[in-house]
């Protein structure tokens, strides 16, 4: 039982982390919340679903990431760059994009939920008393690998340094010669690609529908509140926490309430920690 909870929790945490980190990265760099992120997950899932018969599973994941990279560029141009400085409008623009994406998905793939079949769904591996489908195992391992890759990127590469510089302060970064627009675009591209991987990896675990982006995003928000906006490490930990709590809650309370749990947690955190659990730098000077 404990093992099963752990595994379920890791699967959830993995996908939440992929989405949440993309969100937090974008937020750190652009200071705007990307409300279309959930739909990026959905598009990634559907593209992968469509591509599997032609490219196999791994190829499908790659295809999903490629399509989403393009999506990221489009998002940056339409929903973010025009609104720098007027963050509320940027927020609303990403909302508008998100419903456009849902409609596009409905037009292309229809509204009925589809089962995302892969060979890995069928087979299971047993660790003692705990059975885990290979698909879920792939979820966990792949999420961990991608997150590790991203962490390494942010900590050790020059691109990561640019991300961190722009997150600190746009003006200083620009003064240092960093092309803020390009960095923003890359942040959005990477975020969308990570969302694509989340969709492609967890799609087979549940059914996919054009509506699925909603819950993806909500859980990611909970993770970010816990981990801190713009804080990649904290967000990963937050996602881990949320995933585990939901997994435990699904067993001991009820499945239906699992999203409520994330949100109750989110609201409670904000009640006691108005600046989030991991406070950002306070730059208010009287």
């Amino acid at each position: 039982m404990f093992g099963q909870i752990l595994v379920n929790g890791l699967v959830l945490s993995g996908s939440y982390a992929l989405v949440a980190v993309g969100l937090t990265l974008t937020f750190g760099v652009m200071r705007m919340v990307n409300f279309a992120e959930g739909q990026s997950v959905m598009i990634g899932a559907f593209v992968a679903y469509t591509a599997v018969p032609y490219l196999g599973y791994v190829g499908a994941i790659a295809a999903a990431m490629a399509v989403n990279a393009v999506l990221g560029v489009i998002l940056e141009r339409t929903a973010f760059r025009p609104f720098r400085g007027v963050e509320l409008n940027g927020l609303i623009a990403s909302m508008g994009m998100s419903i456009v994406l849902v409609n596009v998905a409905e037009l292309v793939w229809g509204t009925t939920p589809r089962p995302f079949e892969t060979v890995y769904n069928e087979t299971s591996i047993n660790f003692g008393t705990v059975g885990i489908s290979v698909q879920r195992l792939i979820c966990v391992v792949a999420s961990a690998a991608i997150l590790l890759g991203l962490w390494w990127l942010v900590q050790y590469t020059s691109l990561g340094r640019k991300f961190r510089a722009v997150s600190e302060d746009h003006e200083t970064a620009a003064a240092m010669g960093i092309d803020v627009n390009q960095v923003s675009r890359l942040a959005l591209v990477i975020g969308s690609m990570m969302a694509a991987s989340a969709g492609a990896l967890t799609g087979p675990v549940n059914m996919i529908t054009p509506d699925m982006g909603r819950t993806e995003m909500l859980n990611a928000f909970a993770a970010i509140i816990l981990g801190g906006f713009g804080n990649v490490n904290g967000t990963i930990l937050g996602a881990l926490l949320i995933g585990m709590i939901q997994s435990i809650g699904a067993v001991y309370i009820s499945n239906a309430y699992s999203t409520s749990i994330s949100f109750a947690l989110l609201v409670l955190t904000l009640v006691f920690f108005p600046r989030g659990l991991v406070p950002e730098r306070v730059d208010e000077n009287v």
Partner: protein
Amino acid sequence: MSRKVLLIAVFAVLAALPLSFGTFWINMMITAMIFSLAVFSINFLTGLTGLLSFGQAGFVGIGAYTLGVLAKQGHPPLLAGFYGVLLAMLSGFLLGLPAARLKGHYLAIGTLGFGILIYQLLTNSVDITRGPMGLIGIPTGGIDKQTWYIVMLGVCLIVLAALVYIDRYSSLGVILKMVRHDEIAAQANGINVFAVKLIAFTVSAGFAGLSGALFAAYVRFLTPDLFNEQESFRYMMMAVVGGIGSPLGGFAASLLLTMIPEGLRALGEDNYRLLVYGTMVLFVLWFLPAGIGGLIERQRR
């Protein structure tokens, strides 16, 4: 002065419309006006006082379900509606207590979370609300559409006038704007910023609750899905398209963003509703960043 005359003329024309248009359009106008009250709640909270709320649909839902449940239990609908608004205001107060200490994106996500919790509550309290099965047959029939139309027009006119007065002429407006622009300066001038924010959340929730109660009374059928976070986003989008600080723009945006998708549905092009909606929102944001209200302001000068 001439602007007020123009405004009255527009409303007079709107009042006369039911005589010339069919039931479908009247129905849509009524629904749009009911939604506009929720948009007004955002104009007051975000446009005037500078507080974000991505959970307004929750308060709309509380107002709606309170009227629905109480009316079905036999209470007079007017009283039930009154309780709905009251309960919505209480919820707004409860949200305000922690929310008044939140800033920026934390406030956005926090209010989003609160709205979702309310939605979950409405969905899962099946004993009271009948959850996803829906609350059917709210006993508020017997009022014909023409009456509804005039009533809604009157209500919207009153709320609009009150908001415009507060914004443009009253001392209260200046206080709210100070809280919006500069909390430290506001405090230094004797304004209890926390209390003002709390009151703003409460009053704004009241408007949203009123919208919900009227919705329940008019449509007479409720499901929790009508009050989820997508609906909160819709109200937010309407508010921004209308110009976040302009209730008049919000009214126009509510009409526009209700009529066009519904019109498409009537024409049978149901599949493109969200696409059209989203694209309209994007276009307004790209080319009219101050929304319809901004356009009106420019004409004024």
